[in-house]
Each structure stands twice: as structure tokens, then as C-alpha cells.
């Protein structure tokens, strides 16, 4: 593991240099809400726009990997049908991604490269450099510590940790290392500083214990298999608005819908995909009218099973990283995985 140090005053310089050569995206402040400052990912055009002491962004950085709406094909209908693939990618640096979101990106990488590799994802992914940052604050609904998402060992090109006067930078990839060499003023790291990083991290990890699973996360698959008929699904889902917010804000939700659009000449067109969510009432509905998950409870349960069991078998890991976004933004407040999983656990005890 290669570890370097950037003094805080030099971080702006690093950023400034990057902005000259790259499109840099990072965390910015949005308006105030009654819960305090909100944050979102957007273009960074000047160093002071970047914010690294955020607790959690409203939306995860998944839009950079899977755009909400993405062209797949361009086509011509007449006189002869013709299609051309559209695979877009542009170099991008995402500056400031928390470990739980990095874990989610790692999962997406796996999902989109295994089985039938998805070139649209992979090509775009190739162009993205990820600069992670350890959190300094914990959002009220986070529970990433329970989800083995407090830190990641890979998936970042660089990983920053705020240790006071400076940031320690862990180099995750050669690309990251080169970036540092070319654009940043770094110095070497002392043993004490290395220890400081450990201390800082364990302090923040401890802060993320307020909300936690009451059992080891790896028990989720068996817990869920045994909870298929729990009355909890109905109880919670009776309030579900089918608003799909929990799917939209989730860094590990990636379902999509595909549809065609044509120009007004009715001859040229595009095939797109767009984010979809399994909580939408028509998600499993087919043309004959049959809906394979007709009830709110069935859809609601599906999401938790998918996170904690179905995808577990694919990923050998829960497809929930504990960011707490779904919990924070679900208006009837029924989507909190901590609450759901703990109550299921209570019930089987």
C-alpha cells in the first residue's frame, strides 16, 4: 500500500491542476433543508466549489456510471432498417466518494462485467477515475458500518483521509498514482500519521454505530429466506406510495427500462434505457395485464430480498451498503433497512 500526504493548503492546488486537464465532478452544496445542508454531485469548476466534509449526498454517484437516461442505439427505419450502437464514454474524475458508495460501484462493476458484459457500462467505467474520501460526518440514517462498507480495499484510484492539517492519500491504482505524481504536491508519511489515519477512521466508524444491525450482516440471506411470510411486509407496505424513491436514491439499484423514440420525420430514432425501480406498480406487469408482483407488499418485499438475499448469491455480499438514503427519503418512513432487518430478526428469535 502506497500512502502519501497532501497538506490541506495544497489540496486546492491539486484540484486546480486537475480541473485544467479533466472534467472533475464532486460533491457540492445544494440548498438547506430542515435537516441541514444537502449535498449533490456536480461539476467542479473551481476548487472552492468542492465540499469534502459532507455526511451523505442525496443521490449517489451512480448517475456517472449509469445515466438516468442513456442512448443505446441510433437507427434509421426506412428505406432500409439500419442500426448503429451508441457507446459513450468520456474521461471523468469523481472527487470525493465515500467508501460505502465505492463499495456500491465495486458491486456494479461486477454485475455489469459478469454474465453478459455490458459495454455501455464498462466503457464509461473505464474513463472514470475515482478519488475516494473517508467521511468526517455520519448522516443520521447511515448504517454502513453494519454493512461492511466502512472501508473498501479496492475500487478507488486514490483514497483521501482527513487527519487534521493534511490529507493522507492512499494510492489504489497506477492511474491514481500517476495522477498524484503529475498534479499534486505530496510528501511522505510518518508512522505517527499512519497511526492517525487508523485512529481517525475508527473514530468515524464508531460514530456510525448509532444505527446498526443487531446481528451479523452475513446472516441476512438465511434471515430473509425464513421471513418470506412475515407480517411485517404487509404492515410496512400498506403505507408504500410506490414512489420508487428508494430505488432511485439507492447506489446499488440498477434496474432499467428500454424504449424507442423517433424524430418527427418518423424515420430516424434512438433506443434508450432509463432507470426503473422494482417498487413501481407496473414493474413486473406484462402486456396481457398479468402483474407478477401485483401487491405493494410483494414489491416491497422483493426489494429487501433482492438486497439481502437474491443478489447476495451473486455478489457474496449484501447489495445494500448502508448509506441510509432510502431511509432518509422515504416519506412514510418505511424503507429503512435497519428497521426492517432488525424487526425480522426479532421475529425469528
Amino acid at each position, binding site marked *: 500500500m502506497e500512502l502519501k500526504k497532501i497538506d490541506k493548503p495544497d489540496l486546492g492546488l491539486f484540484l486546480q491542476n486537475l480541473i485544467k486537464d479533466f472534467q472533475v465532478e464532486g460533491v457540492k452544496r445544494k440548498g438547506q433543508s430542515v435537516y441541514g445542508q444537502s449535498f449533490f454531485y456536480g461539476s467542479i469548476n473551481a476548487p472552492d466549489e468542492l465540499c469534502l466534509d459532507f455526511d451523505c449526498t442525496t443521490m449517489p454517484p451512480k448517475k456517472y456510471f449509469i445515466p438516468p437516461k442513456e442512448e443505446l442505439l441510433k437507427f434509421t427505419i426506412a428505406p432500409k432498417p439500419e442500426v448503429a450502437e451508441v457507446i459513450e464514454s468520456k474521461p471523468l474524475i469523481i472527487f470525493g466518494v465515500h467508501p460505502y458508495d465505492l463499495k456500491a460501484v465495486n458491486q456494479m462493476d461486477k454485475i455489469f462485467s459478469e454474465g453478459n458484459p455490458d459495454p455501455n457500462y464498462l466503457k464509461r467505467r473505464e474513463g472514470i477515475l475515482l478519488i475516494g474520501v473517508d467521511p468526517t460526518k455520519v448522516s443520521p440514517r447511515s448504517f454502513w458500518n453494519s454493512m461492511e462498507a466502512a472501508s473498501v480495499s479496492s475500487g478507488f484510484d486514490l483514497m483521501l483521509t482527513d487527519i487534521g492539517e493534511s490529507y493522507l492519500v492512499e494510492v489504489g491504482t497506477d492511474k491514481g498514482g500517476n495522477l498524484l505524481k503529475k498534479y499534486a504536491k505530496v510528501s511522505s508519511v510518518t508512522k505517527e500519521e499512519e497511526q492517525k489515519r487508523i485512529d481517525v477512521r475508527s473514530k468515524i466508524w464508531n460514530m456510525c454505530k448509532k444505527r446498526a444491525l443487531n446481528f451479523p450482516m452475513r446472516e441476512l440471506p438465511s434471515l430473509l429466506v425464513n421471513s418470506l411470510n412475515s407480517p411485517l411486509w404487509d404492515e410496512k407496505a400498506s403505507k408504500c406510495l410506490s414512489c420508487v424513491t428508494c430505488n432511485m436514491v439507492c447506489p446499488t439499484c440498477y434496474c*432499467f427500462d428500454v424504449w424507442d423514440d423517433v424524430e418527427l420525420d418518423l424515420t430516424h430514432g434512438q433506443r434508450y434505457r432509463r432507470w426503473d425501480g422494482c417498487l413501481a406498480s407496473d*414493474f413486473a406487469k*406484462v402486456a396481457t395485464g398479468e402483474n407478477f408482483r401485483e401487491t405493494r407488499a410483494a414489491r416491497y418485499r422483493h426489494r429487501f430480498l433482492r438486497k439481502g438475499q437474491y443478489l447476495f448469491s451473486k455478489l457474496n455480499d449484501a447489495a445494500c451498503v448502508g448509506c441510509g438514503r432510502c431511509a432518509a427519503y422515504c416519506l412514510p418512513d418505511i424503507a429503512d433497512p435497519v428497521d426492517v432487518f432488525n424487526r425480522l430478526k426479532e421475529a425469528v428469535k
Partner: protein
Amino acid sequence: MNHSMPDGSPYVPKWAEISRIEKLTESEKLFELRLSNGQPLGHKPGQFVEVSVLGIGEAPISISSPPINDNSFELAVRKVGNVTNAMHNLGVGGKLGIRGPFGTNFPIDEAKGKDILFVAGGIGLVPLRSFIKFVLENRKDYGEVTVLFGARNPSEQLFLSELEQWRGRKDISYLETVDRADENWKGNVGVITTLFPKVQVDPAKTICVVVGPPVMYRFVIMETKAKGIPDKQIFLSLERRMKCGLGKCGHCQINNIYVCQDGPVLRYSDIFALEEAL
């Protein structure tokens, strides 16, 4: 990140030209197609393709024919929505985009030397036909063959000339029924399960393949159980909403299974415990 980049987009369809169209019923048509690149489709009975009509969209459609020498393949399509309507509006010479074949196939090898009980409900005959015809073409490889076919009423029976042949064949037993008869119908009346008492099977050596509307499965399974056919010898083909055919879009997921990849043909013993499957 380690991965191998595929050559080109899996969303790009190949082109196939319609070489023959046959009207099966008021709402179903059979399309015979050939890939424009002259290649065979390379499918196995039970698999499906994603059919594109540019500007309208894509729909998953089972391949209704067994693999045959002249590289053509057949799709039988019920008109229910945008893509299927647009297909029905095409004529011979029309072009369709094809992706696939996708998914699992019927147990053509596992069933070798065994008896086969085919159970088709309504449009379920469309996918099943590929396997039935495959078996008939390779008749000597298989044991006793029984085909049960149920339609809602006589006018919804598909592939009439083939049914006529099957009725006459000595090397298979073909039984049919309709839920509601009309004045010309002389045969059985009743739901498909009413045919079961009429057939005798050796449960140990019978492979049962069932395709039909979702409601049919539960009742047919009760009958196969009554006959003592083990769950692992029963195969089903499931229908789900699908958008990619690649195991990504999430629509066809049933628990751990992606119907487009792990299905559509599934072994009953693998899915009977799955919530939502049947």
C-alpha cells in the same frame, strides 16, 4: 477492475427477413424468418429471441420451430400490444431485428430414451411446438410420447394442420380439449386437467414439459403429482416482463432467478419453493 470488453453492443439486433406468414387465428400469426446474414439462428427448442421493430420497441418471442436445415425459424405471435401489433402489420419481405437466441432450452438430451408428456395450454403450444417437432423428427430417440393440448375454445386452436397430423399419428398419443365448445366441436370439453385421467404414464421414466398461462401451472402440477412424476422430471417455461434479455434489467427476476438467463425453461424442482414463481 478486471473484465473483458465485449465486441460491440449486445443491443444491436441482427436482421431477419420474413419469408412466409400464416394466419393462425384472429389474433395469432406465424412468421417464418431467415437471418439476412445467411447463418442459422443456432437455437435450441425452448429458447427465445428479442424481436425489434424499430421505432416501436422490442418483445421477447419464443422460437416455435425446432432447428432445421434450411436456416429458417418460426415465430408465432399473438397481437397484444405495440410490438406485436407492428409485427402483424408486416408482410412477406418485411424485416425484423433479432437478438438472441436467449435462455435455457427444453431437456432434449435428458429426455432421450425416456417417455415424454407434453402439456400445452393455449399459446403455450407456441414454445412447446419446437420441442414436440424436434422429438417427432428424432422420434426413435425417445420413448412414449403424449401430447395434451387445451385451448379456451376451438377457434383459438393453433397450428390446425399440424394438430390434424398429430391426431392421425400412431407413434404418439395426442389428446385435446377446449374449455368451451362450439357447434362443430366433437371432442373433449373441459379444462386441460380433465385430460389427465385419460393418460397413463410410467412416472419413473417420464419427462413432463408444461407450458401455458400462469394459472394453469398450479393445477397441472397437482395432476403430475397425483401421477407420481418426480418434481425434477417436470419442466416449465415461464413468462415475465423483459427488457434486455441479458440478465441485467431486473424485470424478469423471480427471487434468485433471471428468467431471461436461468429460464425461461426451468425444472420444477428448482423453482417450486420460490415465492412468486407460480
